[in-house]
């Protein structure tokens, strides 16, 4: 599964590089690459946030999403990785003015998203999971929603935001997130329900 996500991620990053080479608009190439990596990061995070609700939904239908946990982690790591690359590309544009540019609210939101994503990335390995209680780990990793929110605001405040797709993806993630509020149905209850069904 991780290999599949890695392949997908490298493909997406490759597409970004090819896109930026062909058409960078008014931006410099490096900024266009940064922008594309940001899209990959936010997209990966959106997909990661949809994994659990999707798995639960499938479970309710009596099916399972194989390797859901690993898939979620891989997508989350892809989001953090491309977010980090996105930030490095942006910083490479104007390193001397970094501190001053952080006065920009859009960049502060982006930095907030990146910090949270990196923190979640670092704590997403089994070794950390074993040290933290599962409940604490879950509460910590619900900050992924905060990271996504920060990322969306960051993108909305930036020039050339693809506003409609961004709002569409946000609504999608929100709906999936709300589905998580429903009580989870375990495989056992789902099986019982099937058995009871004439």
């Amino acid at each position: 599964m991780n290999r599949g996500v890695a392949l997908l991620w490298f493909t997406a990053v490759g597409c970004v590089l090819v896109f930026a080479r062909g058409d960078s608009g008014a931006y410099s190439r490096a900024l266009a690459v940064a922008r594309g990596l940001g899209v990959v990061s936010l997209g990966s995070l959106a997909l990661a946030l949809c994994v659990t609700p999707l798995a639960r939904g499938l479970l309710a239908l009596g099916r399972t999403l194989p390797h859901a946990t690993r898939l979620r982690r891989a997508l989350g790591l892809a989001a953090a990785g491309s977010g980090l690359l996105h930030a490095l590309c942006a910083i490479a544009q104007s390193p001397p003015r970094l501190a001053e540019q952080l006065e920009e609210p859009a960049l502060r939101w982006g930095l907030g998203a990146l910090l949270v994503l990196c923190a979640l990335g670092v704590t997403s390995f089994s070794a950390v999971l074993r040290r933290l209680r599962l409940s604490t780990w879950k509460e910590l990793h619900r900050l992924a929603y905060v990271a996504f929110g920060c990322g969306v605001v960051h993108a909305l405040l930036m020039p050339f935001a693809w506003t409609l797709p961004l709002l569409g993806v946000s609504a999608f993630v929100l709906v999936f997130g709300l589905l998580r509020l429903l009580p989870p149905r375990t495989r056992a209850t789902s099986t019982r329900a099937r058995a009871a069904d004439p």
Partner: protein
Amino acid sequence: MGRQLFVTGLALALWSAAGRPRWLYLLLAYLIALGVVELSQRVKLLPELSARALAMLGVLFALPGLGFAYKARARILEEAGLVGITERVADRVRLARVPAIAPGLLSSAQPQSFFVQAPGAQRVTLELGLELQPLAAASLGHGLFRVDYDPRVHGRPQLLDGELPVQLRVDGTAHERSLRVVAPLVHPRWFCRSPNAARAATPSEETDELIVLGGRSVQRLPTGDGPLDCAFLDDTHVVVSHRHADEVQVLSLEGGAVRTLRLPGPLGRLAFDALHGRIVVARVGVEPALLHVSWPALTLQAVTPLRAAVEWLGFAASERLIVASRRDATLRAYSASANGFVPAGELALSRPATSFTLDRERMRLYVTVTDHRTTPGPQLGNHFVQDQLLVLDSMELRLVQRVLTARRSEQQTKAGNTDQGGSPLGAWPLRDGRLALAFAGTDELWRLPLPEAEPERLHFADVPFYAPHGVVELADGALWISSPAAGALAVVRPGASAAELVPLAPSERELLAQRPLALQRRIGERGFYESTRAGIACQSCHLHADDDGVAYNLGDHRLIPNLSVRGLLGTAPYLRDGSYPRISDLDEVAQERYRGYARVQPGRRACLQAFVESLPRARSSAPRDVAAERRGLDAFVRAGCERCHSFPAFTNLGQLPLGALFPAIAREQSQDSGVGETVDVPSLLSIASSAPYLNDGRAATLSAVLDEHNPDNLHGDTRGLSEAERADLLHFLVSL
């Protein structure tokens, strides 16, 4: 879920205890809360609680945090940079919903062009309502269409104010969209007076009428589209020029036929020389000129080209014509010749004239300005405004006297004597030798003895009459004053100590009941003209919402040319660097930097925003040539202009680092100020009338934008265009 609520509640409580309205602190508080709960459970500090108990505790903890968030919501949004994000996103969504239409404002007072983006469409029509015929759009290529709308030809929507549902029919499929409709009220401005001084007249551009007054009667006569200026030809005939129709009309005040003469427009103000039976009409736009029309034959005799468009004009003694231009803030004198007029002298002012009047002998010229410096060089005071009256010798164009009407300090944060004499916009020489001055900024009328002495002041405090513009004295000694914002005239009869109101539009009470949005705009218009306690008003620089052609120091001692505030609806954020998310936020400049207003006005910000958003852009006066426009649009797309100046608003509402377009300029500015500048992508609609161009006004013409001011070819690939394509592109830009 119980533990999650407990952690969240605890985080909110910690956040409120810290009292820092930043999201980052809330995040930090969440991590601390998580650590505290984890630790307390590990060392068994807290008793084991059920999920329900934890949830209830969490809700209890959350209450102070939620209270803090509610109280500090404005600061939280500001700290987070989220002020105005809903407007910004809404504007972007509006333009991103294809088929999209721009601009989003429909004024029933003037002709307008709308642009529709409908990629791949063959035929587009705009339906403004059941009562109006559908408007067919002209295809310009690349999925862009243009719809020309003229309310006098196509009719006005029944809705007077508010959001009008419209339908864009694209290849037979209807798409629901909306336009904000504005039906302005009557706006009387400056007067002209009959030779026998028994009557005066003032045009109302917004309602296409001429208001004629005399004695105790007020008559309202219909005119052509957008009457702009008038002059009495004799005691019963008035000639009127029009902004939106290339014609002058001669109206008979005794019910005779209307005579019309079509002229090469667009037209501006006019003046009449009774001695030689000569009407002079200013042609404005890209080819400014003086048009000589004979009277009573009413034929065009000659055309005198000018360097700059005329803002004011009048005949002085000895057949000399004095004109004032806004763009270069210059007074010019012309002498009559066989083929028109020849230059006979000029005087450069620091700022353009805001009003212009000759005395009865036509020897003295009274000009009001927002500043005048006798020393050369630009004024570097931040947003500096010093309202004053200049008295000039009209024969020699020599400054005779300066009268500072509002005495302000050099720094706007310091106190000055600025509660009077703000924004003089109208002057009239009185029979007793004094000069009547109307002050839009401070709602007052002065009768000023000259040479300067203490004026007699009349405040319009007791009548709902504000931001007066024009003033005129009639033979019976009555002084008439106009207020476009109030939609009214006021008259001060001889011997009276107070003004008597002559309403032309519904009262505030009636508007509140019937058209609250119109009332909001009216209050906003008043606020636009009202002087702050530092002596500066919106009007001081944005003359009647247009730019005054002056470069101001807006900070950092860099001179930046100001901008028109028309056509701003749906283009958030604002200013050249996009630093203001909402129009209403500009009020904070007045409140914090200019010591606020003497008068308390509830809802001032919202009203100001409503007024500014109701101002439409001027439609291009370039002749329509769809074939040339299509070629120009091809060049526009080939140069990549549409990546930022996207259809249909010709802006993507984004901002760019200056260095991405002009690296050398960005490096230079960065060395000066240490700050990397961001520039807003402006709309190109009505761009022909918004020179100078680029972020600091360094390009005087559109041609210069494409050529010498694009050295790195990053501001569009203009180097890749042939000469013919460049000409087509320029034609297209002028047609927007």
